[in-house]
């Protein structure tokens, strides 16, 4: 084949792969066509593409042509080896002495299958390894620079495709997680309302009879203490159920235009005494006045709840800092509350917004779940960062009133 025809051949293969990639076909179809065309043009026995599964850290075969065995390990040793190649900027790696190749786990089998030369190309984006492409030949030979160039270009395209697919997969997984979480919250809400109603009736019977009996028991009677406990525990149940109902109600916020800093100051004021008694310093770094459309009572409830958690995490002598400010685009406001308290264990951090999850012995586990629901209803987000022993930091974002909204508001005020 003269050189013009060789280039034409490369060009055609490359064009077919690119065309396939842009035809929105299945990823497998694109990769299968790619490995087949590449193997054909290099007169190879076959070719395969493997992906590195980011969670299991194992390689899995995603496309193959002409080869039905994997002579390599799919585990961490292969990843390590390919990573070294990437670090050393070796874009391809030839395995020529098949019988004695340490890279292979079934060298004998490869030899018996007639394999005499294997070309390996790590597929990566920057230094992150995504997979590997392997080309198997039945004859030991040298590759021309043009051939190497061609194979490298194909492998780079594969890496881009895999990167894109993994990005979509991660996004899908995040969406699934979110969808499940939302569903869990809403079905739990319905169930909570039902349970609350059913439990309040028997509790009413217990509380009425015990509060009636306690008056009939002489002061020194041993029954007195038991009855007192029954009454206080029943009252405690009432509190838990009330919290549960608040959570289940999922009511629409009654939004008004207000300045977030006013709500922050009001919430701090409520707990002023508590801060003083426990020697907690509150550091405020409040930004310029920021107008937001929100339910003042609900946001106050969220802030008070976060401050209370911070107080409990600190117990005595510590710092709570609160910062408010708008983002650079002026469309979102951020409230950050950090404390110097005991922090949250890594294992517990994922569950902190789950209903009924509590780290406190007398906690209902509803405070942050309710807060989560409230912020969600305001189209905002609430996140937590924490390390055990190093304090916690809650970040709430809420949409700022758009400039058109502000104008409308100003007109109303006029």
């Amino acid at each position, binding site marked *: 084949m003269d050189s013009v025809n060789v280039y034409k051949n490369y060009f055609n293969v490359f064009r077919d792969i690119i065309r396939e990639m842009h035809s929105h076909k299945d990823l497998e179809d694109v990769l299968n066509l790619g490995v087949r065309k590449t193997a054909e043009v290099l007169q190879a026995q076959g070719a395969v593409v493997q992906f590195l599964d980011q969670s299991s850290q194992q390689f899995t075969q995603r496309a193959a042509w002409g080869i039905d065995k994997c002579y390599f390990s799919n585990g961490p040793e292969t990843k390590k080896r390919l990573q070294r190649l990437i670090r050393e900027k070796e874009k391809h790696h030839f395995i020529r002495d098949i019988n004695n190749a340490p890279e292979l786990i079934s060298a004998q089998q490869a030899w018996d299958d007639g394999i005499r030369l294997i070309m390996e190309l790590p597929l990566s984006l920057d230094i992150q390894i995504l997979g590997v492409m392997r080309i198997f030949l039945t004859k030991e030979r040298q590759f021309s620079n043009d051939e190497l160039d061609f194979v490298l270009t194909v492998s780079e395209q594969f890496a881009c495709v895999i990167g894109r697919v993994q990005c979509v997969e991660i996004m899908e997984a995040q969406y699934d997680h979110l969808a499940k979480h939302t569903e869990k919250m809403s079905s739990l809400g319905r169930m909570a309302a039902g349970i*609350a109603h*059913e439990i309040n009736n028997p509790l*009413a019977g217990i*509380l*009425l*009879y015990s509060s009636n009996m306690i008056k009939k028991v002489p002061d020194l009677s041993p029954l007195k203490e038991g009855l007192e406990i029954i009454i206080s525990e029943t009252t405690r149940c009432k509190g838990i159920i009330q919290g549960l*109902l608040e959570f289940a109600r999922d009511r629409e916020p009654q939004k008004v235009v207000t300045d977030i800093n006013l709500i922050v100051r009001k919430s701090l004021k409520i707990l002023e005494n508590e801060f003083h008694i426990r020697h907690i310093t509150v550091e405020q770094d409040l930004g310029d006045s920021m107008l937001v459309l929100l339910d003042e009572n609900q946001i106050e409830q969220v802030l008070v709840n976060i401050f209370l958690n911070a107080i409990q995490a600190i117990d005595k002598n510590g710092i709570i800092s609160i910062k408010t400010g708008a983002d650079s685009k002026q469309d979102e406001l951020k409230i950050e509350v950090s404390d110097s308290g005991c922090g949250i264990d890594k294992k517990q951090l994922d569950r902190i917004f789950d209903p009924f999850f509590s780290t406190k012995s007398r906690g209902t586990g509803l405070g942050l779940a309710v807060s989560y629901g409230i912020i969600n209803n305001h189209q905002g987000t609430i996140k937590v960062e924490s390390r055990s022993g190093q304090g916690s930091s809650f970040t709430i974002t809420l949409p700022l009133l758009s400039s058109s909204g502000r104008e409308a508001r100003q007109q109303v005020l006029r």
Partner: protein
Amino acid sequence: MKPFKILIIDDEEVICNACHLILSERGHTVESKMDGAAGLKALQSNRYDIVLLDMMLPDMEGMEILKTIKQKTPQAGVIVITGYSTVANALKAMKLGAADYLSKPFSEDELLASIDKVCSDLKP
């Protein structure tokens, strides 16, 4: 305090019995009915000073009974009791003419305080 004639309408027998015990110990005359229809029937044939009314009955909504009581026997003071208390519900009941609102579970003292409050509001 003079004894009153009190009707309890609640489908929970334990609650009816408990309120019956507490109120009769205070000298009041107490009757209880376990559904809306029986409650309304009793209201037609007797005159009560106070009605303790559950909001969720098996046969009808408590709010409907409240409306009927206020139309037919407006002199009776109605204390609404409910297991699913919301501010909105309480407001609605008050607007319809309820004299007080107790959310379950409540204690003897809370019940008696409510009865006292309603009694002092009742026209002689």
